[in-house]
């Protein structure tokens, strides 16, 4: 077991918003056992995926950059539990947890990280650009705030087409300093489109701390001045995130316009694999480790009687097996032929500008 098991002591659990559950309370009545177990498994899958990815990256098998999300899995899992398959999400360079939460299969995720032909992007996107349009995953982007201007357009498209889909835009605290963040909020409010902005505030934009990014800022308060319904929630509590998301989704589907959720969370590792993260103080890291959302949900599930210890262990084993098989699948998958580097630039032309046959890509 390579999962780092934190201390089971719950003294350090901090309450951050009214949405959080106390363990003494019974199970939530707005989520079924099946849903909760699904959320828990998905969070473990994400955590396991990130740990495995790190391991294989450090072994030299995965190339490029890897921006991992251990510690943040509750946020997308909570949000995506409130979404349908045909809803859209956009993600970021640190997006594995977002896309797995939305429904990506770890087999094709690993295949993509290993640059294989049957990866989600045929090996052409990589970690920072994973997309699965069939599940509404419009894609991660390597540019901080890159999808912020795009997402309102997705929501506008929904509104113009007259469906009740919603668009969720995941981003971090660092992106809120970019101009596109503000333009996106403004246009979304102007157009009253069904979008949910979810800021995963992990307190760092690379090495730059949040309190030096924005002056004495409470994001929800700042955003509310754009006349976008804004809320702050505990990103280390999947149920709390779910509840905030559910409200926003209902608002959106009902034509009530955009919402904003700030989810306070933390990444346990540095910005990228290889970053020693000297800028993250040890005490701070330890404090947030104690608030590990996945472990917490596990504890809660056992406390609510939704899951036994054996079932917990069994689930751990299942997840581990799924991940092992996914890696084996990726490693045995064919690499795309080198000429694939030249395809998929245009729909109607090849990369040199010669017309392609109709239907050719």
């Amino acid at each position, binding site marked *: 077991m390579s999962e780092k098991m934190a201390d089971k002591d719950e003294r350090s659990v901090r309450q951050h918003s009214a949405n959080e559950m106390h363990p003494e309370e019974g199970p939530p009545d707005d989520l079924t056992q099946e849903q909760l177990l699904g959320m828990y498994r998905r969070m473990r899958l994400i955590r396991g995926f990130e740990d495995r990815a790190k391991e294989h990256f450090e072994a030299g098998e995965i190339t490029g950059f890897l921006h991992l999300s251990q510690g943040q899995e509750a946020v997308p899992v909570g949000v995506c539990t409130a979404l349908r398959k045909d809803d859209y999400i956009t993600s970021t360079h640190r997006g594995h947890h977002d896309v797995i939460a939305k429904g990506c299969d770890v087999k094709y995720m690993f295949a993509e990280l290993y640059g294989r032909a049957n990866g989600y*992007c045929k090996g*052409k996107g990589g970690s920072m650009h994973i997309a699965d349009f069939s599940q509404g995953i419009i*894609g991660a982007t390597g540019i901080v705030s890159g999808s912020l*201007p*795009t997402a309102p*357009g997705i929501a506008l498209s929904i509104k113009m087409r007259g469906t009740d889909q919603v668009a969720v835009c995941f981003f971090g605290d660092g992106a809120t300093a970019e101009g596109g963040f503000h333009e996106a909020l403004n246009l979304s409010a102007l157009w009253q489109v069904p979008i949910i902005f979810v800021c995963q505030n992990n307190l760092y934009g690379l090495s730059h701390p949040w309190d030096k990014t924005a002056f004495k800022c409470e994001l929800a308060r700042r955003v509310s001045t754009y006349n976008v319904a804004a809320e702050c929630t505990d990103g280390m509590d999947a149920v709390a995130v779910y509840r905030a998301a559910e409200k926003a989704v209902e608002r959106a589907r009902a034509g009530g316009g955009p919402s904003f959720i700030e989810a306070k969370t933390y990444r346990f590792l540095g910005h990228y694999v290889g970053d020693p993260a000297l800028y993250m103080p040890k005490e701070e890291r330890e404090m947030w480790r104690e608030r590990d959302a996945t472990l917490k949900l596990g504890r809660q599930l056992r406390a609510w009687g939704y899951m036994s210890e054996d079932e917990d262990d069994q689930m751990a084993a299942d997840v581990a097996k799924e991940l092992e098989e996914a890696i084996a699948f990726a490693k045995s998958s064919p690499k795309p032929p080198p000429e694939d580097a030249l395809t998929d630039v245009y729909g109607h032309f090849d990369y040199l500008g010669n*017309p392609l046959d109709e239907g050719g890509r």
Partner: protein
Amino acid sequence: MADVKHLREISYRDALREALREEMLRDERVFLMGEDIADPFGSAYKVTLGLSPEFGTDRVRQTPISELGFVGAGVGAALTGMRPVVELMYIDFSTLPMDQIANQAAKIRYMSGGQAQVPLVIRTQGGMGRSSAAHHAQSLEAWFVHIPGLLVAMPSTPYDAKGLLKTAIRLNDPVMFIEHKLLYNTEGPVPDEEYTIPFGVVDVKREGTDCTVVATSRTVLMALQAAEMLAQEGISLEVIDPRTLFPLDVETIVDSVKKTSRLVVAHESPERGGFAAEVIAQVADKGFDYIDAPIQRVCAPSVPTPFARHLEDFIIVNETHIADRVRRLVRGEI
């Protein structure tokens, strides 16, 4: 333009408006976004005037001054089933949404392994001649030609403008559609009938035998005037308008050079790193054995556009510059 029954003389502006209107009628997914595009203002150069009363302000969606925001929204809408045509009032402002153009629109199809398409048209205009100074007079087509994933069109006549814009809207790839501020009032024959112009086909606007001039946008008109001047002197100039800078039909240009053995490439944007260099590199490779004299560029000097009218006139490529260079080339002085 063969077998055309009804031709009307209309302006470049009207031709563009007709294209937008026809495509919006044809496909309800087509909608417009941009600054000041709704009536009564009808956009900075009046191209969209009259469209919002017909199609409503949802489909002719006027935006605040948020280039990054509304170009990005165009990308998002294009990714999810719509066919937006976004207007950037001046190409000089394209620096603001550049991430959405170059990193997102141009690359999402590729990065997603072909899962997505971005049928987005960004209409904009550039060019000198209105004393509009350095921030309102650029021609930045070279930047966009350089980015894999973008298509670039630069029409010089009303006929080309309408045909190319209709095609651009129907294509499933992002198009930078670059108009010219001094061309909006020019007039030319445009058929009544429905037509489109494919991308990747140059137009030989005048046939000749002594020298080939390839020119873009308004410089095409300068080249045609130069051809008239030179014809009086017995020099026969062939004028080629690429119309789409990418895809570029270089084969037709090479065929022309086979005939004339001399090439001049002219454009209004600054010489250094400009589009002429791309054309010349391709022709020097594919047409090597046909070239009898050093290939020439006639472009603006590599300076920002000055304000004073006479200073601006000094750097605008005009028919005299082109004629003079061709003359010296044909006489063997170069």
